[in-house]
């Protein structure tokens, strides 16, 4: 059935059409052409009314409503359509843009269910469903998981728009395939994710494995306290690292500086006293986090599982150090494993991971910031560049894309972009995703919770989808303050009541 006609000036990548009804943004249409059928995506849709043109006031608007109903020609439906390629090629995953633009007057029609299924729901290995097409609800929206492990993934959205749901869904799907996922969980969002093959670990830091700068961060020595950092650098010797009594040895090294008669060391004595306090304090405060006797932290991560590394107990600096450590180790492990697997030298080595690993970094703007360097950013950038070769995929998640390092962001081969209102964020996304049309980005403000624009290599075509809700995800939803207050108040009442009843009157003093 004819849906409309191409009008105005056509381009090989873009046409305008006048249609018989208002088309939805994100709807797919088909354009016939001599070279074959072309698939297009409605990127902008407009309705105008002759009756309402030049309406100047309420009364005229009111009168026009009646008039508009009389005139079936009153409304003009215009659709701006981005051309995605020849349908036949898209079925095979290739986007071939026509050399000749569709001729104005060419008819546009709706693609069949089969047309869309062949493109968006390929029945091929590695493709998993994450929801359905937003404007064609009967069509499953599938993504290629291979591509996100090999070419990385960016999940960008305002808070509360479904980022962690999508992370959970991707994790669940990879876990089903017995793949390895590691989520750095900064807000304790995933520890209660109720899916099979889940491995929740409280992230700890082994101070022996750090360098003095990292240890300084972990102990929360201020950045400006350069003398204290110098003291720590002097005290944190190889002997300390190897000592079975790590903290004692470190303290004794600091004591040595404090008690030294060396004039040079006398000058830094007061700072050494401060470091002594800091080290003592850290043992108490970070007892659960800093563990010199833990084994290799990587050994707690299980291959073939969804690993949730709970870093919510760590301060930002500690989390940064931990993240850098894990990323470094993971890259090293995968590098060694890949070289051993593909290289000509068959040296015997121990590898933790024999298959690809997908690492997800939540709050990417904290760990991979745009405006300053962090060790986590260094390693994330390295993985973004090199991970592909070694089967180490990176997923970065952020609600502030404008604050994420563009070099890392633009290495992401695929994106799920949900509702984003800030123009700066939209600009950053446009810079990072060259293939995404600006028209599609302008739609980001109008998306609802769970709706996402998928672009990049994990989908055959840019698509607007509604992401399925992961029922197994318990945490992460907005908390109801009203319910919590009511519950707290009730508990207060119970507490008062019970203690009153327990008091033995005869024991009370007059």
């Amino acid at each position, binding site marked *: 059935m004819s849906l409309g006609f191409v009008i105005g000036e056509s381009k090989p990548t873009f046409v305008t059409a006048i249609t018989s009804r208002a088309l939805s943004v994100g709807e797919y249409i088909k354009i016939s052409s001599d070279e074959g059928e072309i698939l297009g995506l409605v990127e902008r849709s407009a309705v105008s009314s002759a*009756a309402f043109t030049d309406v100047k006031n309420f*009364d005229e608007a009111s009168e026009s409503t009646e008039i508009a109903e009389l*005139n079936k020609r009153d409304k003009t439906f215009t659709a701006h359509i981005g051309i995605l390629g020849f349908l036949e090629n898209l079925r095979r995953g290739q986007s071939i843009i026509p050399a000749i633009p569709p001729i104005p007057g060419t008819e546009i029609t709706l693609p069949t269910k089969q047309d869309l299924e062949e493109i968006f729901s390929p029945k091929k290995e590695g493709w998993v469903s994450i929801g359905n097409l937003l404007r064609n609800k009967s069509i499953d929206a599938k993504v290629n998981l291979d591509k996100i492990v090999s070419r990385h993934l960016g999940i960008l959205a305002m808070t509360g728009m479904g980022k962690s749901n999508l992370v959970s869904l991707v994790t669940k799907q990879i876990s089903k395939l017995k793949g390895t996922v590691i989520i750095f969980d900064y807000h304790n969002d995933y520890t209660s994710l109720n899916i099979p093959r889940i491995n929740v670990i409280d992230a700890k830091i082994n101070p022996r494995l750090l360098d003095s700068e990292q240890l300084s961060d972990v102990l929360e020595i201020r950045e400006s306290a350069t003398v204290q950092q110098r003291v720590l650098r002097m005290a944190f010797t190889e002997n300390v690292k190897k000592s079975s009594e790590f903290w004692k040895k470190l303290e004794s090294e600091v004591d040595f500086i404090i008690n030294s008669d060396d004039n040079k060391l006398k000058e830094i004595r007061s700072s050494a006293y401060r470091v002594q306090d800091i080290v003592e304090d850290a043992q108490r405060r970070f007892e659960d986090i800093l563990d010199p006797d833990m084994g290799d932290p990587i050994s707690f991560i299980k291959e073939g599982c969804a690993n949730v590394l709970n870093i919510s107990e760590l301060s930002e600096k500690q989390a940064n150090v931990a993240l850098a450590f894990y990323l470094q180790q993971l890259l090293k492990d995968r590098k060694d494993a890949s070289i051993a697997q593909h290289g000509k030298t068959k040296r015997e080595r121990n590898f933790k991971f024999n298959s690809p690993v997908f690492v997800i970094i939540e709050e990417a703007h904290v760990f991979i910031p745009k405006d300053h360097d962090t060790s986590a950013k260094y390693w994330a950038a390295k993985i973004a560049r090199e991970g592909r070769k070694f089967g180490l995929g990176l997923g970065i998640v952020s609600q502030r894309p404008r604050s994420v390092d563009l070099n890392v962001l633009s290495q992401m081969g695929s994106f799920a972009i949900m509702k984003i209102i800030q123009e700066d964020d939209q600009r950053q996304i446009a810079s990072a995703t060259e293939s995404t049309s600006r028209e599609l980005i302008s739609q980001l403000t109008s998306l609802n919770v769970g709706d996402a624009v998928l672009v990049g290599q994990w989908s055959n075509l840019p698509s607007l989808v509604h992401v399925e809700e992961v029922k197994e995800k318990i945490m992460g939803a907005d908390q109801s303050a009203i319910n919590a207050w009511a519950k707290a108040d009730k508990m207060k009442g119970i507490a008062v009541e019970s203690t009153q009843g327990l008091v033995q009157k005869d024991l009370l003093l007059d």
Partner: protein
Amino acid sequence: MLSILKGPKFDQILQKARDNWIEFMPTKEEVVTAGIDSSFNNTKFQGIELWATTAVSVKSNGEILVDLHKSGLGSADDISSVASKMEIEACEKTVDEVDMVLMDGSLHSQLMTRQANLGSTIVRIMKKKDNVVFIAKTSNTKKQFEKLGSLAGDIFYYNHVTNNPGFSKIFVEKKYGSDKIISSTFVRLSDSTPIIKLEFLGDHHDESEIKSIMNKLYKTSVGGYPYALKLAHNNCKISDKELAKMVSLLGLSNEIGSREVLG
């Protein structure tokens, strides 16, 4: 500035206008109307003139009843007369199709100034079913208050004395001959909308008929102006861009020096 326009007998004129004004709140009455309008455009082209005219008759529901086009190369001395002729042709094709035909413009101007030679034709068509009304958004005529020394057009004084819906007493002009008697009235269809001028052929029109016509117009009017006429106007515009298209269609764009047309 306004005081000059008012003139010495301004208050007297206003009083007369007030006396002439009949307040009437129209109620919507179902009717099939068609609006008719024409348009023309031309451009000089290497010593020749490319001209185009169009006339359209369209119902309030958007159905186009008549769509006429003419164009040519050469010197068109008076394209406006071509357009007027087409308008009348459109009117002739419409009178039997609808209850009421709304012509854009002034009957007075049609008969007396623009196309006096078409007068007999238009009279014949208007008499056929007596359902043709000329409607003008603007009017310069100074007939009704000229004896009082009016400086502005009649419409100015009616606009001044009231904001409410209603109409002025019917003014009959017989000086063009017994077969070309024009009855006219100034009408406001709803509160605070601009006044429009209605003109009919003949002197047999009374106030009850005006009220009935107002009811019919009110049904499909926006801002006090019939929607069918707005549609007709929108449908028969010949823009410079369209002329440029014609130049292309006629193959003239290949001629040297034709770029000015497209400018």
